[in-house]
């Protein structure tokens, strides 16, 4: 069996306030069929065997749908495979002997917790600010009682594919969360159920996004390339349109955001 030998350069940081630094790790005898995270598991087992602290990284489902994992690998959020989360990236995308630089998402709004783990609570607070609909309690309505045009349903589904991993922020030179916020706004705003709060939603979510210290959108499209779900920046134009309309015609009042940054 052919094996891979990678030369890792990994960001290590003991805690939120500790100074971080890059540490080199030699990673021989790897299988090309391993996922990137399995490779880190192997490296960590070796570190533990040597009595060293393992590399901390976030992960959960490891099947590309939970949004927990996310690393900047050789300068690209989620690594070299397009439309793929870090957990679904495999070592066959790398050459043996290659240097692999591994960094956490870098943004003021995503403080490092430890090593490669960042706190993405800012995204949760953007959701809490307006990423929901009001639903009546009571009996479940008939599935087809509210008609949704097929094109709208498809577009809403494309936006709803967002797993909130934060790769858009990581890849943006301005560390903007526009693609994330816009995906949520488009997903709800395309549905009939999302209409009542539509003006308030965009004003509140954008206000919260700004409060969290994310940068602005410069329409350069790095986010849509990094997005593991390939969400188009067309949703950002839609958010801008909703924001303009709400600023001019409605949504006055409770523009407070969802909580302290």
């Amino acid at each position: 069996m052919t094996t891979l030998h990678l030369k890792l350069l990994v960001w290590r940081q003991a805690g939120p306030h500790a100074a971080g630094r890059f540490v080199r790790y030699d990673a021989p005898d790897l299988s090309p069929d391993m996922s990137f995270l399995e490779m880190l598991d192997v490296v960590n087992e070796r570190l533990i065997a040597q009595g060293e602290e393992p590399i901390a990284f976030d992960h959960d489902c490891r099947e590309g749908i939970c949004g927990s994992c996310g690393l900047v690998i050789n300068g690209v959020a989620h690594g070299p495979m397009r439309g793929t989360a870090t957990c679904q990236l495999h070592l066959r995308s790398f050459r043996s002997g290659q240097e692999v630089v591994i960094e956490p998402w870098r943004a003021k709004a995503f403080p490092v917790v430890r090593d490669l783990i960042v706190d993405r609570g800012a995204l949760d607070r953007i959701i809490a600010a307006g990423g929901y609909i009001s639903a009546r309690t009571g009996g479940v309505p008939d599935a087809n009682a509210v008609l949704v045009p097929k094109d709208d349903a498809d577009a809403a589904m494309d936006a709803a594919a967002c797993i909130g991993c934060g790769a858009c922020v990581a890849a943006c030179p301005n560390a903007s969360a526009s693609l994330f916020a816009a995906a949520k706004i488009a997903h709800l705003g395309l549905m009939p159920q999302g209409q009542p709060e539509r003006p308030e939603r965009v004003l509140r979510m954008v206000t919260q996004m700004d409060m969290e210290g994310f940068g602005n959108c410069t329409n350069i499209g790095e986010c849509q390339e990094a997005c593991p779900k390939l969400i188009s920046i067309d949703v950002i134009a839609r958010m801008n349109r909703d924001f303009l309309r709400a600023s001019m015609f409605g949504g006055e009042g409770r523009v407070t955001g969802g909580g302290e940054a």
Partner: protein
Amino acid sequence: MPFGRFWSSTIGKKVVMAVTGIVLVGYILAHVTANLLIFAGAAAIDAYAAKLRTLPLLLWGVRVVLLLSVVLHVVAAAQLAVRARAARPTSYRRFEPQASNATSRTMRWGGVALLLFLIYHILHFTTGQAHPAFVHLAPYHNVTTAFRVWWVAAIYIAAMVALAMHLYHGTWSMFQTLGIAHARVNVARRRLATIIAVLVPLGFVSVPIAVLVGLLR
């Protein structure tokens, strides 16, 4: 929403940049068209300059709108740039752009270069302090004497390269900011941005090049 709150949001500032961008692109189209009058001869362009002086309301109205647009455009850009820099306090050791290009990545510094050029350009051809042989209301004389000096022509040609780059991303981007983006219109706005970014700077550089090669004397 009151304008103060609109202006304080990142999207509000971008909308201001987009609207002022439309004003500036609109003006630049008129400017380049008028410049081409120089190929109709000294009489034509000098008469055009004199004609503008008989319409002070139009002249000063346009000047005020342009000044306001430039100020708003630059202030919003500067504030957003400061904010964006603060949004990433630690930079990446390695960062590989996947989608952006040379034009979209140079909007900020390219914009600063264009602002400096704009100041020089006004001192050069409008007020005349930066022009050693300036004659008021004689644009043909002013342009031909200026561009005979190779480095003055070079400054203008370089500035028009910067303008082409700024227009290529800016014209495309302002539609995005104003919410005009859809699979049906995206191809058209890319095409429009390309046409404007190529034709406008070409129209402008045709004058210094024509002077340098002796077509205009």
